[in-house]
Every structure is written in structure tokens, then in C-alpha cells.
């Protein structure tokens, strides 16, 4: 058990990624009432966009820190544009349809993005190596090895979560966003330009995906066209277990899920086959215990 | 003495409902007598709707007791309370808008219907007869409110205007032949004239059903004056006054807290 520190750090890193993905889900259906199943694939797209940017920057002879900045910007800009485009062309026409239809739509959008990467990115089915842009190395505390890049990424992830929280809950844009989500018509009567707010909200949610994709790529140094699929399932789970009404719920859910997986492997390596069985059983128990998430949504509906 | 107690249909004792630190109802004692129309009035947020919610089982009481006849329904689930013969309307319309008017009204008669799978799936003849009976009753009720409504029996509820939706809600509350009906602001959004009409309709139906007990929440004093036998005035979850409308309306406390100078 000398590796407890190491496991903690692993869990923290993994939880940060899960939490970021979960936060995207919370933005989409906590705030916009949309289940966006293409979220994971937008994340993948961000990572691949970042990869191309690094290649280009490298070819232009930019320094490593500059490559890093360019990649980050490209990933976020790409996902923002794609997110806004999806909302405008595909989500908006379905606004009056049963909410589940949105799910099918986004699922198919996700499939299309995923398949497009696989088919049209050179050698797209195979995993791609993502260059290391952050300082390598680290330090040992006892038997545990603390990677510098992991620590940087955890801090960056936490900071971005904080920033998004602020935008949603304390900025005027966030206010408008929530108003539009709840009642578009009345929001318009209050002078809110919903035609702009909705794409912007999707852009924001998608930027978190792009950001998560970059964190993923930088941490694992390897990306592949289907990496968003499982992340989306886990992110969705985390968001819901945590409670949809609130971004902190997503974060808690993310760390919880990461903790669960890590714990099973660390405590019972021979049972590693079953770790997802355990994780999901526990999830079912949790959701039964708190049917609207750990941080329960405040009831706003009354009779 | 016994005859007197059987005279009381519903009683609440020390009924308290809390939302966090807020006392929506505070140690409330209210008796509702058999066959009367009780008006429940009071300023906004004084707990009228909450009272209806807690006796119909939508909210649970934080403390106190509710008796319906001799049965303690304080901890009962809403569906069990309903089967004791209680039905209601809601302050905010709660029709299932995508369903037909008929489906909505049938819900009110649910406890009198045969819900068995065998009856519903296999014995289609007897099911059809039952459905026909409900349809006829629903048409009859709707006709009392608005002669044009029976023809819209199989239109979706969403196609009706606000007033007609309220009427359908009232029909839904009445079709199951309940003992006690709770009406929450039935006249909201109507003009004086329309309000008068609704009053007449309710009174008419009450007569035809015989012995129906009604609790009515309203801000329209004209309506209260005309239909109620007795009024209870709430403020901050407490009963501040009780009696005939005329007496209540003359009470300076009530005037100050609720009615204003008019």
C-alpha cells in the first residue's frame, strides 16, 4: 500500500478529465435541457484539431511553448465552431420535438464525427501519437512519482472548471443562458437575443470538450478516433450521479467515478475484470439512494 | 355529541408545513363540515394552496394531524386519499395537454373504473360499455359548463382556451362523484361575468350531486360571498379569522392584511 499517494494522484488526474467532460454534459442538459451524446466525439475532434495544429506549428518551426498555445487555441476554436454549428443546424430544428429525439440526433452527429475522423484523417483508425508539449519529469515522494505535467494539467482543469462555474452562475451571459434554456420566448421578451445565446452556450459547452480533449492528449500522449465514446459514457454517468442542477455535482461525480475505478484495481488487482461491474453497481446504489444526484437539484416545481 | 362529530368531514389539528425555515402552515386547526362550501382566503403566500396540497397528499405535513371522517390521512399517499373520495383542481392548470379532453376527464373517474388487465385487454365489450358510460357522463358535465364543449371531447386539451381548460379541470374533479372537492382559484383569469357563470355552474352541479363538500380558494370576493357558507382567513400560515363572509370581511384585521381599504 505504499502507492497510496500515487493512486491518489492518478485518481485526481482521471477525475479532473471525467469532471470536465461531465461539466460539459451539465452545461448541455442542466442548463440547456439537451442530452448531447455527441459531446465525447466533439472532445475527440478537439484533440485531433490540436494534433494537426501541433504538426503545423512544428512545421513552421515554432517553439514548444508556442506549439502548445497554438494547439490549445485551435482545439478550442474548432470545437466552439463545431458546437455552435451543431446547435444551429441540427439542434434548433428539433426544439419542439420530444426531448428524446434530440438524443438520437446527437448520437448520430457523434457517430458522423467519429467516422469522419476515422475515414478522413490520415491513418485515422490507428491511434495517433500526441507530441509531449509540457515539461517532462517530476519528483518522487516516497515510492510515488509525481509527474510535473500531471500537476500542471490538474491545476489547469480545476481553473477552467472554476471559470465555467463563474460564467454560468455569476455572469450576465450565464444569466441569459439559463433564461433562454428555461423559457426562450420570455427570454426574448426580456431583450435577450436567443439566436446568439444558444449557439454561444453550445460553443461554451463544446470548448470545455476541446479543453478536456487537449488535457487528455497531453496527459496520455496518445489519441484515437473512438476515445470520446467511453469518456462520454463516464462523463454522462458522473454528471448524473453528481446531480444535474449544479456544476459541482459533475465534478464530484467525476472524482467519484475515478476513485471507484482506481480503488477496485488497487485493492483487488485480480478482480480487475470486474472493476466496471463494481463501479456501475455502486452507481446504481448511489442513484437509488439519491434519485436526483448527490447534490440534489433544488426542487423548483411546485403544485 | 357523536352526531356533531360525524358532522365534521375533514379536520386538521396543529397542522404544520415547513419549507426550510419557512412556516407555510403553522399549527393550523380547521374543521370542514359535511356538505358545506368553505371559503379559504388570505393574502398571497399565506398557505392556502399549501393547505390544499397537504390534505390531498401532495405535500407531507411536518407536524400535526389530518382526519378525513374517522380516518387519519396525515401520512397517507395521495392515491389512497383520493380513494377516500377527495378530488381537486390546481392553481396552475395541470391538464395533460397532449391527451384528449376525454382522457383527462376519465382520470377523474379512475377510482370507479375497472383497471384489470383482463377487463381492459380481453373483455373489450364490457370495457367499451364502461368507456361509453364515462363518455356520456363527461358530455353531460361539460354541457353544463359550455354547450360547445361536448363536441370537443376527443380534441386534445391543448386546443382549448384557458377558460375551457379550467372547466375541464373542474369536470375532472367532479366526475368521480367525490365527497370533498378542493378548488384552487377557479375563477382566475375570468371576467366578472364569466366568474359569475362559473359560480352558477358549480352551485348547479353541487345541487345535482347532492351533499358535496367544497373547499374553495379565491381572491375574487364576489364569488366567495355568493358561494361560501363559511370562510377561513389565513395569514402567514395561521388562521386569523373564521365565520360567515360578511362578518369576516368586516373584521379589521382581515381588512388590513388582505382586503385593503375598499
Amino acid at each position, binding site marked *: 500500500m505504499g502507492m497510496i499517494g500515487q493512486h491518489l494522484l492518478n485518481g485526481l488526474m482521471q477525475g479532473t478529465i471525467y469532471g470536465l467532460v461531465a461539466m460539459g454534459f451539465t452545461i448541455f442538459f442542466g442548463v440547456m435541457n439537451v442530452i448531447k451524446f455527441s459531446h465525447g466525439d466533439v472532445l475527440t475532434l478537439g484533440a485531433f484539431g490540436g494534433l494537426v495544429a501541433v504538426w503545423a506549428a512544428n512545421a513552421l518551426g515554432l517553439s514548444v511553448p508556442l506549439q502548445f498555445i497554438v494547439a490549445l487555441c485551435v482545439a478550442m476554436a474548432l470545437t466552439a465552431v463545431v458546437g455552435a454549428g451543431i446547435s444551429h443546424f441540427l439542434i434548433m430544428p428539433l426544439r419542439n420535438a420530444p426531448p428524446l429525439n434530440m438524443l438520437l440526433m446527437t448520437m448520430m452527429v457523434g457517430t458522423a464525427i467519429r467516422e469522419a475522423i476515422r475515414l478522413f484523417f490520415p491513418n485515422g483508425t490507428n491511434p495517433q501519437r500526441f507530441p509531449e508539449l509540457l515539461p517532462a519529469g517530476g519528483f518522487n515522494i516516497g515510492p510515488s512519482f509525481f509527474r510535473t505535467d500531471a500537476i500542471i494539467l490538474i491545476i489547469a482543469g480545476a481553473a477552467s472548471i472554476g471559470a465555467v462555474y463563474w460564467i454560468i452562475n455569476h455572469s450576465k451571459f450565464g444569466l441569459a443562458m439559463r433564461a433562454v434554456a428555461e423559457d426562450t420566448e420570455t427570454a426574448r421578451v426580456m431583450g435577450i437575443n436567443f439566436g446568439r445565446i444558444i449557439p454561444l452556450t453550445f460553443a461554451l459547452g463544446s470548448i470545455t470538450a476541446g479543453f478536456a480533449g487537449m488535457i487528455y492528449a497531453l496527459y496520455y500522449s496518445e489519441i484515437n478516433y473512438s476515445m470520446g465514446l467511453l469518456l462520454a459514457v463516464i462523463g454522462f454517468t458522473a454528471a448524473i450521479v453528481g446531480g444535474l442542477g449544479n456544476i459541482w455535482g459533475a465534478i464530484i461525480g467525476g472524482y467519484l467515478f475515478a476513485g471507484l475505478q482506481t480503488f477496485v484495481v488497487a485493492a483487488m488487482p485480480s478482480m480487475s475484470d470486474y472493476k466496471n461491474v463494481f463501479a*456501475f453497481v455502486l452507481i446504481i446504489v448511489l442513484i437509488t439512494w439519491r434519485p436526483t444526484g448527490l447534490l440534489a437539484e433544488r426542487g423548483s416545481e411546485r403544485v | 355529541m357523536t352526531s356533531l362529530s360525524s358532522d365534521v368531514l375533514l379536520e386538521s389539528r396543529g397542522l404544520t408545513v415547513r419549507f426550510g425555515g419557512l412556516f407555510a402552515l403553522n399549527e393550523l386547526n380547521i374543521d370542514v363540515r359535511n356538505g358545506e362550501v368553505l371559503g379559504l382566503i388570505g393574502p398571497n403566500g399565506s398557505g392556502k394552496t399549501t393547505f390544499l396540497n397537504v390534505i390531498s397528499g401532495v405535500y407531507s405535513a411536518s407536524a400535526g394531524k389530518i382526519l378525513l371522517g374517522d380516518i387519519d390521512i396525515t401520512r397517507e399517499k395521495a392515491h389512497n386519499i383520493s380513494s377516500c373520495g377527495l378530488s381537486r383542481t390546481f392553481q396552475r392548470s395541470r391538464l395533460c395537454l397532449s391527451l384528449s379532453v376525454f382522457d383527462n376527464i376519465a*382520470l377523474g373517474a*379512475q377510482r370507479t373504473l375497472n383497471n384489470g388487465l383482463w377487463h381492459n385487454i380481453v373483455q373489450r365489450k364490457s370495457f367499451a360499455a364502461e368507456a*361509453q358510460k364515462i363518455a356520456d357522463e363527461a358530455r353531460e358535465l361539460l354541457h353544463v359548463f359550455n354547450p360547445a364543449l361536448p363536441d370537443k371531447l376527443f380534441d386534445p386539451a391543448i386546443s382549448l382556451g384557458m377558460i375551457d381548460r379550467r372547466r375541464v379541470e373542474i369536470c375532472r374533479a367532479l366526475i368521480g362523484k367525490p365527497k370533498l372537492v378542493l378548488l384552487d382559484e377557479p375563477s382566475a383569469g375570468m371576467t366578472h361575468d364569466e366568474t359569475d357563470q362559473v359560480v352558477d355552474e358549480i352551485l348547479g352541479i353541487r345541487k345535482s350531486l347532492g351533499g358535496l363538500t367544497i373547499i374553495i380558494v379565491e381572491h375574487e370576493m364576489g364569488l366567495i360571498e355568493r358561494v361560501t357558507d363559511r370562510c377561513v382567513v389565513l395569514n402567514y400560515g395561521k388562521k386569523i379569522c373564521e365565520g360567515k363572509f360578511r362578518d369576516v370581511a368586516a373584521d379589521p384585521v382581515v381588512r388590513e392584511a388582505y382586503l385593503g381599504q375598499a
Partner: protein
Amino acid sequence: MTPTSRTLVRVPVWPLFVAVAFAAVALTALVLIENQKLLGAALAITAAVCFCAARFGGVAAMEVAASENPWLLRGLITVASLAVIFVLRDDNFGLLMLATVLIYATICLGLTVQMGYAGLTNFAAAAFAGTGGYTAAMLGRQGGLPDALVLVCGGLVAVFIGSLLILPVLRTRGHYGALTTMAFGVMFNVFLDANDFFGGPQGLKLPGINLFGWDFTNDIHIFGLVLSSYVNYVILTGILTALAMIFVGLLDRSWVGVWFDVVRLDETAASVFGLKIAYWKVLAFTIGNFLAGLMGAVYAKMTGFIAPANFTFGDSLVMVSIVILGGIGNRWGVLPAALIVVLLPEKLQFIQEYRLIFYAVLVIAILTMRPDGLVARRVRKLHTETSA
């Protein structure tokens, strides 16, 4: 008193004949045609005809005729089905796909009861079908039990496994409910993968169906004709689908259907008027799971092989897609939707690795054009039957 006005005017029934005949021809064409250009043309014609029929009142005329003459409709469908089977009699693959479509459609009828009527999100339909399939496989190993019972057991075990989930399903709603079933679906898969008792990731083989001494793996010789052995499965699944269709239809047009709807739309109003929410949800959940388990068992026996990879979360999503694409809550919608979702990817084999993206784009296009699904749900009119 306004007595019910009975329609004395006879509605024309010919639109029914035309519609059923057209559906049969379109179906046969879709199954048979392999040539890509012809296939495209057939699809385009089908879409155009449906569009025109909807546009110029043909669909409405057909619906009226159908609701006035339910037995005629049933008869026509039976005749048309037999005709389709006759035409496809020795096309093994076509028949296999047809049976698969019917199996999916029936599972999705169960999902319609759960999701479309009672509003229970179920993202584990494939897992419940898998439960049925594995039940059939395990019972087959023991031997001795007649296959009719084995299939029913498939349904019952799915119901039993589902009942373990009752508590979370009852307590959660909406997205939270989606998570419960999703977690179960994923777990089901991982568990089977990890567990060698049920064959592990390699899966299990199982023999074909043998109903009352009739072996489904044999070709049928009748009137000097040889029918592919898969005709057995098409007939069996066809009968099961028809039964499920009738059952779900009757359910919808009864109080039970109304209560399901109310429970879905407004739990507060439902319980205030005396509906015991838990009972109705459990009922819907049970009906749906039984259908899934039953058809899962048939599917396993038909393909002769069952592995965890057949029942993944992705497959559950496919089933949900069928329900959505068909028009949620409309039982007729699942048939064309199952046809599109199950058959189309197979028909697109000729574009090889591009077929998934093409399929995704196609579904997106359909949804953009028909946001409510192929056949949107209608307002229930109980009186059509009460006055008949």
C-alpha cells in the same frame, strides 16, 4: 343529453388495400434488391409515395378505413405477409433479415410501452434481450425443456432480472432513470465478458428452435415447393410481432393506456386522482422486459450463437433509436424504423467502410425533416371503438 352520433356513411376501404399492397411490394423490393442504383431508386420512390400520401390525404383516408375495419386490416396484413414470404421463399438472407427486423420491432414495441407510454427511459433493452438469449442458451444446455417453454422462460427471466432494478427505476426519473438502466446495460456486458460460466467473451452456441416436434432448421416442403428453413423463423417472429402489436394496441386503447400516459405526463395529477404510480410503472417495465427477453431468446436460437458483443450498450441505443425514429409512442412507427435501422446498414455493405457515416447522415437528415419521427403519435380516440 347528446347521444353519440354514429357514422352511417361508409368510409371507402380501397385505401387500405392500396396501402397494404404498397407496403408489401416496397418491403419485398427493399429486401430483394441488391443493385445499388435500383436500391436507391426504390428508396426514393417509397419516400416519394409516402410523402405524397401524407400530403394529399391518403394516409388520413387509410387511417380512417383502418380504424373502421380492424379485422379487414388484420386479414390484409396476413395475406400480404404470406405473399411476401412466398416471394422470398428461398432467399435465406432476406428471410433472416426480415426475421431480425421483426425481432427488433417487437423488442421496440416493449420499449414503446416503457418509454412511449409510461415514460420510463430504458437504455438496457439489449441487456434484457440478452438475458432472454442467455436463458435460452443455459436452459438448452440442461436440455429436456420444450422450446416453447424455453422461450417463455427467456421473457420471465428478463422480467426477474428487471425486477432487481425496480427500486432504482421507480425512484429515478428522466435522465436519472436513463443512467440507472444504462449502468445496468454496461454492467451486464462487462459481467458476461468477465465471467467464464456464461461462456465469457467467446459466447455460447445453441441449437435452433424445435417447437412441438417441428425442427426450425429444416427446409419446408409444401405443395412441391421448397421453402427456406428461415421461413420458420419469419413465421414465428411474424406471429409474435402481430400478437405484440395487437396487445400493445389494445393496451393503448384502454384505461391502462390512458393511465400510462398520465403517469408519464404528470405524476402529481396521476396520484392525486388515485393512480398508484409504482404499480403502473412496474407493469410497463414488466411488459417491456418480457417482450425483450422473449425475443432475445428467439434471436439467440435463430442465430445459433450468443455472445456479450451482441448485447452491448450500443445495441440498446440502436433499439432506442428505432423507437425514436419511428415516432415515440406510436406502435406502427417501429416497423418502418426497424426496417431502416436494421436493414439499411446491411444494404449499404457495398460502400463498405463508409456505410456507418452514410447511415448516420441519413438518420440526421430524416430527423431534420421529420423532427417527431416517421409516424408521429396521434391523440387517442377511445370512442372509435366504443361507438363501433
